[in-house]
């Protein structure tokens, strides 16, 4: 009987790992897909610059079609620097607030931000869609549905116990809306901004002085959730659901480092924490707030037997859990017996704290990805969509490849990792290659009937 569990265990690891990766790539793909569709439908036929909006990202320089290449580049650089500076400042401010334990304030702020994004941005995009598609909806129905949608969305990111699918859906929707907004920036600014954010992400997460790293370590040391928007893939269900006394599984978004208990060395469940990227919007008047860097928390590779118990459900700790912590029975303990606490969802806020950009693993092994990552991936693909669909395919593949590499590194280093750098760098590279080299090649081949 002892062999059986272990064999089953091994099968489980393989199954669950692939399943988990799919569960994180699916929402990323859906988000990108929706942004591409939105961009394609709402794109101005005239040019790729679209309506010019004055935002914090175009504070230093507003791009004109008539400017020279070098001017555009310089302007874009200036814009990005300003943006990254603002993001850094706001992230540090958020870290300070977190340090002073103003989590209530952060939480309400996030709820408010979510509402703004969903209601106002969502409403505007819906109006634009209705106009473009000549959809005869009346304002009563429209307002009603919009308010309902937004209120439920705020609840979804606020409350801890909520339908997982709905929460995930709303996070994706928020990602789509903010990404669309970003694609409205001038072209050069967008690309340079992406690269700048990737570099910032790298610095903020890995450098010891980076704000996100500080945030993660604070959260770990305090065993708290970071108030931010994080997409958590649905955890793998426990195999031993038949066990009595399981009670309710809690989902914890942050998996702290329960350092020293890793006696069993069960590497199958990697407890990784997420990085956070706090994204804040200053006001819904299109001034993007700062975007925090991404931060991947890292937990120790503690075994699955570490149980993270929330306050409410302490009563549900049953004999099994007690046994699980017992070092003797660790090997026999079920692979996935985690208590995860979904307090994170209750904290995350809308615009402002767009979760952490960052990738990590929750206690249950479910992968977590910050909403900022969703947004920047989708911005990249959306921008590519403004040029051509070939670029979209290339960039999509590049981003997924980058994500795969990041996941591998995550498994390897078991630390908080920034999810932006690889994907964005590969994406930008592929975009440039497609635009400069591939397109020419494919077009010539098609014209000469060599390859379609």
């Amino acid at each position, binding site marked *: *009987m002892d062999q*059986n*569990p272990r064999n089953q*265990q091994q099968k*489980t690891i393989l199954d669950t790992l692939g399943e988990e990766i799919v569960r994180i790539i699916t929402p990323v793909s859906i988000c990108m897909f929706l942004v591409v569709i939105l961009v394609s439908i709402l794109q101005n036929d005239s040019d790729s610059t679209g*309506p010019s*909006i004055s935002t914090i990202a175009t504070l230093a320089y507003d791009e004109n079609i008539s400017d020279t290449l070098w001017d555009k580049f310089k302007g874009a650089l200036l814009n990005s620097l300003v943006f990254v500076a603002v993001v850094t400042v706001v992230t540090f401010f958020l870290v300070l607030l977190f340090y002073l334990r103003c989590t209530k304030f952060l939480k309400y702020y996030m709820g408010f931000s979510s509402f703004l994004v969903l209601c*106002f941005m969502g409403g*505007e995009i819906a*109006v634009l869609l*209705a*106009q473009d598609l*000549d*959809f*005869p*909806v*009346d*304002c*009563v*129905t*429209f307002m*009603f549905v919009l308010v*309902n*949608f937004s*209120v*439920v969305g705020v609840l979804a990111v606020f409350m801890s*116990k909520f*339908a*997982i*699918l*709905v929460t995930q859906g709303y996070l994706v929707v928020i990602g789509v809306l903010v990404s669309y907004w970003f694609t409205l920036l001038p072209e050069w600014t967008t690309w340079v901004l992406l690269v700048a954010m990737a570099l910032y992400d790298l610095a903020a997460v890995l450098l010891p002085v980076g704000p996100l790293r500080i945030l993660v370590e604070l959260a770990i040391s305090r065993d708290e959730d970071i108030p931010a928007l994080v997409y958590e893939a*649905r955890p793998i*269900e*426990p*195999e*031993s*659901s*038949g*066990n*009595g*006394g*399981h*009670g*309710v*599984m*809690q*989902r914890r978004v942050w998996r702290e480092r329960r350092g020293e208990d890793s006696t069993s060395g069960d590497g199958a469940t990697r407890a990784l924490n997420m990085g956070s990227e706090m994204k804040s919007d200053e006001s*819904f*008047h299109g001034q993007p707030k700062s975007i925090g860097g991404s931060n991947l928390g890292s937990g120790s590779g503690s075994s699955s037997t570490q149980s993270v118990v929330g306050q409410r*459900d302490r*009563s*549900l700790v*049953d*004999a*099994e859990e007690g046994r699980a912590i017992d070092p003797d029975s660790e090997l*026999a*303990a*079920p*692979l996935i017996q985690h208590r*995860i606490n979904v307090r994170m969802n209750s904290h995350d806020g809308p615009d402002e704290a767009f979760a952490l950009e960052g990738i990590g693993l929750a206690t249950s092994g479910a992968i977590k990805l910050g909403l900022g990552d969703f947004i920047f991936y989708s911005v990249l693909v959306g921008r590519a969509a403004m040029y051509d669909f070939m670029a979209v395919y290339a960039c999509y593949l590049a981003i997924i490849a980058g994500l795969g590499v990041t996941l591998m590194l995550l498994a390897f280093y078991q630390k908080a990792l920034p999810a932006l750098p690889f994907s964005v760098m590969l994406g930008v590279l592929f975009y440039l290659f497609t635009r400069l080299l591939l397109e020419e090649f494919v077009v010539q081949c098609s014209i000469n009937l060599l390859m379609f």
Partner: protein
Amino acid sequence: METPQAHPTPTTTPPAETVITIDSGSPPPNPSTRIRRTQYPTIDGPFGVSEQDSVEYARRFFTFGFLLLPFLWALNCFYFWPVLRHSRYYSHSQPQLRRYVIGSAIGFTVFATVLSTWAFTFAFGGERVIGPVWEDLVMYNVADKWGLSGFI
């Protein structure tokens, strides 16, 4: 992986656990044991609210739905879908929960019918049915009038 037989289950089972032979919700059926399958009231299975909290949860959603938020009712039904599916089982064990969920379902159906009737009349009837006020009500005109589609 421990099989349930290895567990001293009955005495330590928290009150949240109910034991029946059908498995609903998301936990995958465990073929190796027929002894205990837990029935979760939520669609999330082991990750949803516990049974004790679910009554409170459903009640809150039900009452807040009356603030012109039928979407909350829909969400209630979605979240507690197993309750609707196995309503006979729940009418014995958790009649209150079932009442709230069914109330939400009824409320949402009524509301959806009313709203969609109005929306379809507006969309397909158009000016013929509603009259000249159609132009004033349609969203894109309203948006133009108030400049709502200038981007934020």
